[in-house]
C-alpha cells in the first residue's frame, strides 16, 4: 500500500502553516506504518487538541479526536478492550505534558501498549504562540513577552523515570531515522514514547528570532548527535537523538488477563 492510500485525501491541503514540521511527521508516520505493513483497520489514532492533534483527521484509520490532554485516557479505554489493535497517540508538547502530564506519566507507568508521539514545537501554536512546558528557560512567547522563567521538561528523562519501555527522540530533519524509530515504537509491546522535535516557524521561530523553517531544521541537524556519541561529551549542549530505552517488560493488557484468570479461579 502506498503512503497516499493511508490518508483522507478530501481534507487536503492540511491546516498547518507553511514551514510547519507536523506535515513531515505525518508523512513519516505513514511511511513507518507502511514499513510495518499494517492494515488501516488495525490502527486506532487517538488525539487531543492542538495543531498536532489535527493529524488524526487526515489519516484513514479509526480516529478519535478527543479533548485537550486526555487522548491517552481514551486510548487506554480502547486498548483494554481491543488489545489486538495498534494505538497511536500523537500529541503536542502542551497537550502531552502540561494539561496531559498526569495522564502521560501514568500511562507510562502502566506500560500499556500505546505509542505516544510528542510533536515538540516548544509552543502552543493553535492558540497563537504561548510558552509551553517545553519552551525552555529564557525563551519568548506571547505570554512570556520579556522572558520565560519556566524550565522545560526533558521528555526522554521524564519518560524513562515514569516507566516507559521504549523511549526515543528524533527531529523533522532526520526523516529516515524518524521512520525507523516510529516503526520500532509502534512495533514495541508496551508504552512507547517518541519525541519529535518539530519546528514552528510561525510562532516559536518568529518570537525567538530563529529564522524560517529551513533555519530551524538546520539547527536540528547541527545541534543534535546520535545517542551515546563522543560529540556529546565534547559538547554537552548537543541534544541526543536515537533510541534511549527499549526493553521488554510485562504489558498492562496482558497483566490484566492474569487478573481475570485469578478472579475466575477464585470462583471455583
Amino acid at each position, binding site marked *: 500500500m502506498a503512503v497516499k492510500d493511508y490518508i483522507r485525501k478530501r481534507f487536503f491541503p492540511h491546516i498547518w502553516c507553511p514551514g510547519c514540521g507536523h506535515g513531515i511527521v505525518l508523512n513519516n508516520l505513514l511511511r513507518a506504518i507502511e514499513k510495518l505493513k499494517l492494515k*488501516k483497520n488495525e490502527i486506532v489514532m487517538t488525539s487531543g487538541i492542538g495543531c498536532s492533534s489535527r493529524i488524526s483527521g487526515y489519516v484513514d484509520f479509526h480516529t478519535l479526536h*478527543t479533548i485537550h490532554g486526555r487522548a491517552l*485516557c481514551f486510548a487506554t*479505554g480502547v486498548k483494554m478492550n*481491543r488489545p489486538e489493535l495498534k494505538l497511536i497517540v500523537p500529541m503536542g508538547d502542551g497537550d502531552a505534558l502540561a494539561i496531559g502530564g498526569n495522564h502521560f506519566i501514568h500511562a507510562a507507568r502502566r506500560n500499556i501498549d500505546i505509542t505516544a508521539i510528542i510533536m515538540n514545537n516548544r509552543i502552543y501554536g493553535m492558540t497563537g504562540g504561548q510558552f509551553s512546558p517545553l519552551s525552555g528557560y529564557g525563551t519568548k512567547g506571547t505570554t512570556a513577552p520579556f522572558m520565560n522563567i519556566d524550565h522545560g521538561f526533558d521528555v526522554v528523562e521524564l519518560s524513562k523515570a515514569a516507566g516507559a519501555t521504549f523511549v526515543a527522540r528524533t527531529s523533522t530533519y532526520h526523516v529516515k531515522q524518524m521512520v525507523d524509530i516510529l516503526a520500532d515504537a509502534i512495533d514495541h509491546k508496551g508504552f512507547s514514547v517518541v519525541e519529535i522535535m518539530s519546528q514552528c516557524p510561525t510562532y516559536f521561530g518568529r518570537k525567538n528570532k530563529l529564522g524560517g523553517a529551513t533555519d530551524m531544521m538546520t539547527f536540528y541537524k547541527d545541534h543534535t548527535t546520535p545517542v551515546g556519541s563522543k560529540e556529546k561529551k565534547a559538547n554537552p549542549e548537543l541534544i541526543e537523538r536515537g533510541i534511549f530505552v527499549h526493553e521488554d517488560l510485562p504489558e498492562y493488557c496482558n497483566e490484566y488477563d492474569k487478573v481475570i484468570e485469578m478472579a475466575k479461579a477464585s470462583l471455583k
Partner: protein
Amino acid sequence: MKKNIKFIQGNEVCVEAALYAGLDFFAGYPITPSTEISEHLSKRLPEKGGKFLQMEDEIASLCAIIGASLTGCKVLTATSGPGFSLMQEALGYAIMAEIPCVIVNVQRGGPSTGNPTHVSQGDVNQARWGTHGDHAIIVLTASNHQDLFNITVDAFNLAETYRTPVILLFDEVIGHMREKLVMPEKGEIELVDRLRTSLGEGIDYHPYLPREDGRLPMSDFGGVHRYNVTGLFHDMWGFPSDNPQVVHGLIRHLVDKIENNVHQIARFKEFFMEDARTVLVSYGAAARSALHITKNRRARGERVGLLELQSLWPFPSHIVREKCASAQKVIVVEMNVGQILKEVKNAVDNPEKVFLANRVDGELITPTDIKSIMRLIHGKGV
C-alpha cells in the same frame, strides 16, 4: 422458586444492577462515599471476564470509559461531587460524540470538599448544567434499594436507547445504607442492547446519521468501519464542520432527542395522590422521610400525598403540573437550597402555592422536620 434476597449497601446494589445490565468495563478513582462501587467491581468484573481500571483521576476515568464504550462495551464510572466536577468536560464530550455511558454520583455536601461522609442533594443542577454549552441530559435517582436496582438498569437502557451519557444521582445515606434487595431473575427486567449497524464492510457507514426513528446505529470502534469521532461540531461522518446548518442541526438533534422524549424518560412514583390537597414532591433519600410523614398524616385523616420523582432531568414538568393541579399546597422536600423547587414552581399553575422543606446541614431531613415545616406553611406554628 426461591427468591435471591440480599441485605447489602446501596453502592453494592448499584454494582449488582450494573452487572445485571451487562456491564463490561469500569474505570474510576477512589472517592467517598462512592468507593465501594469500585471495590466491588474490582472483584466482580474480572470474575466475568470484564475489566476494571483504577485511573489517575476522575477525568481519566470518564475518558477511559468513553473509549471503552466506543468499542462496544457497556461502561460505568462512579464518583462524588469533587470527582463529578472534574468529569464535566468529558461529560460534554460524551454528549457531543453521542457515546452511551453511565456515571454514578453518590452525592456529598459541597461546594468543594464539603462533607464527604454526609448526605446532600446539592448536585442536581450541576448534573443538569455542569458541562458547558447547550445540551440535554438524563439524570435519574432512587430512594430505596429495590428502586435503585431498577433505575440503574434503566440508566444503561436509556444510555443505549438515546446514545447518551446517563447520570445516576444517589444520596450518601442510600449508598451506605444496608437494606433488603430481592435480586431480579435473569430476563425479569428488559435490557436494551447496543444498536449496531447492519451495514457490512466496504459500505459507507454514517455514525451520525439518525434513522427514521431518531436512533443512531453504532459500529464498534476498531471494527470494519473506519470513522471519525470528535468533540467538535461534526457532520454525519463525524468530521468537523462549522457550517451553520450542520452546527444548528446537531445542537437541535442533541437537545431534541432527549427533551422531545421526556414522556418516555419520565420516571416517578405516587403515594396517596388521588385526593391530596397537600402534595409533597421529593426524590432520593428525602422521599423516604416524605413518605413516612405522608403515611403518618394520612392516618390522622389529612389529605397529604407524595409525588416521588425518579427522573430529575429532563425535568418531568408535565407530570408535576398534572399531579399538582388540584393541590392547594405543594411542598418540595429536598436536601439543598431549592434546586428542584424552582422547576416545580415553573411547572405548576400557581407558583405561589409551592414551598420548600429542606435541610442543608449534612443530616438527613427527618419526617419531624417535614412535619414542622408543613405546620408552619399551614399557619399552625411548630
